[in-house]
C-alpha cells in the first residue's frame, strides 16, 4: 500500500525539483548552457516507468512551467507534449539502446525541442537568439547519462527500502 504511494511522491518530487532547477539562475558565463531540466526528468520517467508519463501530464507540467516563467501560456506545454509523444512512440526501441546511442537520441530530442521553441518565439514576434543559445541541448545531452544513472539508482534504492 505504501510503496506505490511513496513511488508517486518520489515521481512528483522529481518533477517539482526539475521546475525549481529551471528557475535557479546560473552565473553569467554558464547561463546559456543551462539544460532544460523538466524535459530531462520527463524523458527519464517516460523511458523507465511504463504508463506513468502521459501526454496529459506533460501538458499540465508544461502549463505550470509556463505560469512560473511567464513568457507565453502554452509554449512549454506544446514542447513537452511533443517530446513525450516522440519518446513514448519510440520507447521500446530507445530502451534497448546502449547509453551512448540513447544519449545521441536525447540530444536529437532536445535539439528538436529548441527548434520548436525557436519557432514559437519567432511567431510571437521575438528576435533571433544568440548562437550560444544552442549550447543548452548539448549540455543537456552530456548530462543525460548522469541524470539517468542517478535517478535510476535512487529509484532502485527507494524500492528496496
Amino acid at each position: 500500500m505504501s510503496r506505490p504511494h511513496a513511488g508517486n511522491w518520489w515521481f512528483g518530487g522529481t518533477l517539482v525539483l526539475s521546475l525549481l532547477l529551471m528557475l535557479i539562475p546560473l552565473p553569467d558565463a554558464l547561463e546559456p548552457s543551462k539544460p532544460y531540466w523538466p524535459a530531462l526528468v520527463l524523458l527519464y520517467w517516460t523511458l523507465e516507468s511504463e504508463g506513468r508519463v502521459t501526454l496529459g501530464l506533460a501538458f499540465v507540467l508544461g502549463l505550470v512551467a509556463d505560469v512560473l516563467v511567464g513568457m507565453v501560456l502554452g509554449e512549454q506545454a506544446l514542447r513537452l507534449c511533443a517530446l513525450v509523444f516522440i519518446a513514448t512512440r519510440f520507447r521500446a526501441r530507445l530502451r534497448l539502446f546502449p547509453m551512448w546511442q540513447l544519449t545521441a537520441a536525447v540530444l536529437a530530442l532536445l535539439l528538436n525541442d529548441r527548434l520548436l521553441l525557436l519557432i514559437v518565439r519567432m511567431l510571437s514576434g521575438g528576435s533571433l537568439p544568440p548562437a550560444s543559445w544552442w549550447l543548452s541541448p548539448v549540455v543537456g545531452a552530456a548530462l543525460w547519462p548522469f541524470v539517468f544513472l542517478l535517478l535510476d539508482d535512487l529509484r532502485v534504492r527507494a524500492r528496496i527500502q
Partner: protein
Amino acid sequence: MARTRDESSPLFAGNPAGTLRLIMYLALALVLMVLDQRNGWLWAVRNSAALVVEPVYRLAGLPSAGVRMLATAFADRQSLTGQNQRLREDLLLANAKLNRMAAVAEQNAHLKQLLDTSHSLELKVQLAHVIGVDLGAFRYRLTLSLGARDGVTPGQPVIDAHGVLGQVSEVLPTTSVVMLITDPTHALPVVVERTGVRTIAYGSRDGSSLTLPDLPLAANVRAGDRLLTSGIGGRFPSGFPAGTIRSVQPAPGGAFLLAQATPAADMDRADDVLLLHDLADPQGPPAPEKPAGPPADLAPASGSGAVGHVPPERAGAAPAAAARPTSGARL
C-alpha cells in the same frame, strides 16, 4: 530492466489513438498561445496563482542569495577593507559634488519658479532587491522583491547607481518583473548629451548593448558620446544616463547611421535597484483646448460637425516607439 513487450508500446508502428491525442493537445496549446497573445491570459492566471508563484520565486532565489552571502562571509578581511576604503572615497567625492551642486540646484529651482514651471530635481525612490530567478528570456528581465502591495505600478522606471535599467512590466502582489532597456522589444527615447540630437535607443539581440538604428546621416554623433534619457514620451524622466556610444557606422540601407551603445547601468550585476516614483514631466504638445462654445445639447445638431470637437488627449502622449504597451514587450 528488460520487460516483456505489450500492446501499448509496439516496437515499430504507433497507434492512431496516441497520434490523435497528440494532435488534440498540440492544438490546445496553440489555441492557448494565440488567445494568450491576444488577451493576455497569462497575466490573469499568474495574478491569481501569485500565492503559489511567489514562494516558488523566493525558493528559487535562495541559492543565488546563499552564494552571495557565502561570498561575503568568506571574503577576506583585506578585500573588505579595500572595498570599504573605496566606498568611503566615493562617498566623500559624491558629497563634495553634492555640496557644490546644492547651490546650483537652489538657483535652478529659483529660476524655474520664475519661469513658472514645475520641474523638480528631487527624486522619490524606493529601494528594491533583485531576486535571482531565471525566467528564460535570454536575460532581458529582472525580478524584484517589491510588488503591488508596496505601491509598484507597471511602467515605473527602474534605475541603478549608474543609469536607467528598465521599466516595470508586470506586477504581482509582492514581486514585480522588470523589462531591461537591452530587451530587443524595448525602446528608450534618448538625447545625445554633447549635441542634443534626439533619437530612440532600442535593445539588441545579445542583450548587453543598445542599438540606435535611425540617426540621420548628418547627425553629429561619435563614439564616446554620452546618452541621456530625453523625457519624451513621458515614461522616463529626462536627464538620466542611458549609455555611451561605442561605434557609429552607416546602416545597411545607407539612409541612416547605425550606432551601438553600452548601457550605463550595471545590467549583469544589479543586486539592489531604485524604483522611481515621480513620473516624468510630460514633454510634448500641450493638450488641445476644449473648444469654447455653447454646451453640446444646445448646439444645432446638423452644424456641430463643422466645429470638430476633438477629445482632449493626454498631455505628452507617447510616440509609438517610446512606450510600447506591455503586451508587445513580453518576449
